[in-house]
């Protein structure tokens, strides 16, 4: 899907903060739902070939979403998001931390801030992610590279099978 929608990704290393801004061709209420309702989040948050599974979600201040990113070989990486502030259809903040499958968090985590605004049917979302350590960022990436590695080896197998024919 090609479009002219804004996508901005910058990292302030000194502030250990990632800034992401993206526009979506949909009205505010749809985008807000896609970011705050677990059944919708699970449909897009995991970059393929990873998948996302939410065990439970309670979208209110102090409430949590407990979920896993699942690699193609079925490996689950659990994490907890705790909602720290919610202004409906405008902003929500959460604290995200890796966890084990029994919901024990592995601190430190990262602080997420989402701001939503709509203009002429285009909704802009600005996300800032504050990470206490770059090492943690690396662990996030590590999970995804494993997923990518799996899809690469799948591709290799497929190519090998095809070339035999």
């Amino acid at each position, binding site marked *: *899907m090609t*479009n002219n*929608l804004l*996508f901005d*990704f910058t*990292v302030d*290393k*000194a502030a250990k903060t*990632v800034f*992401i801004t*993206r526009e*979506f*061709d*949909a009205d505010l209420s*749809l*985008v807000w*739902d*896609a970011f705050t309702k677990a059944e*919708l989040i699970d*449909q*897009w*948050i*995991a*970059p*393929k070939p990873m998948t996302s599974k939410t065990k439970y979600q309670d979208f209110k201040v102090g409430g949590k979403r407990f979920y896993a990113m699942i690699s193609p070989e079925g490996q689950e990486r659990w994490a907890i998001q705790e909602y720290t502030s919610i202004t409906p259809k405008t902003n929500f903040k959460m604290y995200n931390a890796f966890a084990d499958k029994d919901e024990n968090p592995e601190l430190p985590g990262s602080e997420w801030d989402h701001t939503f605004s709509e203009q002429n049917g285009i909704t802009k979302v600005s996300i800032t992610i504050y990470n206490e350590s*770059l*090492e943690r*960022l690396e662990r*996030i*990436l590590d999970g*995804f*590279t*494993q997923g*990518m*590695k799996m899809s*690469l080896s799948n591709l290799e197998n497929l190519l090998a099978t095809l070339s035999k024919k």
Partner: protein
Amino acid sequence: MIYSSLTNMFSTLCRYSATPCDFNLPTFFLLKKNLRNQIVAHIFAANRFRIKSNNMRRDIFQAIADPTRRAIITLIALHAMTPNAIADNFNTTRQSVSKHLRILTECELVKQEQKGREIYYSLEIEKMKEIDKWLNQFRKIWETRFNQLDNVLSTMKKQKK
């Protein structure tokens, strides 16, 4: 393309390793846990006991982990400077500045050049790019994610109609 960017990233990681390791991707994943433990152990040992070995080179992320070093990087990004000129910009001692310069040199983020009696420090731009390359991987994750969200949103819009 994915393979080569992964290999780049792992080669940075492998550099920590005390034992030589090749940058072969499947091997890396087989060794991963051991290797990572080894990397962590090595960093701890090096920090705690200030072990200096010829094999061990520091990592660029260690270089940018300190605010003074980031300020030094910003300074010398403009033009090469002598340690004294750099130190003039800080309220710390010359020794402290030269310690930071040593770390930056070990990380290969800065290079030294002798001009007459003075040593000039300047930035290794190529090395800085390594950081960008690494961060670019996150950008790609978000790109994929948002493209998926575009699809979800367009499905939602259709369902609404």
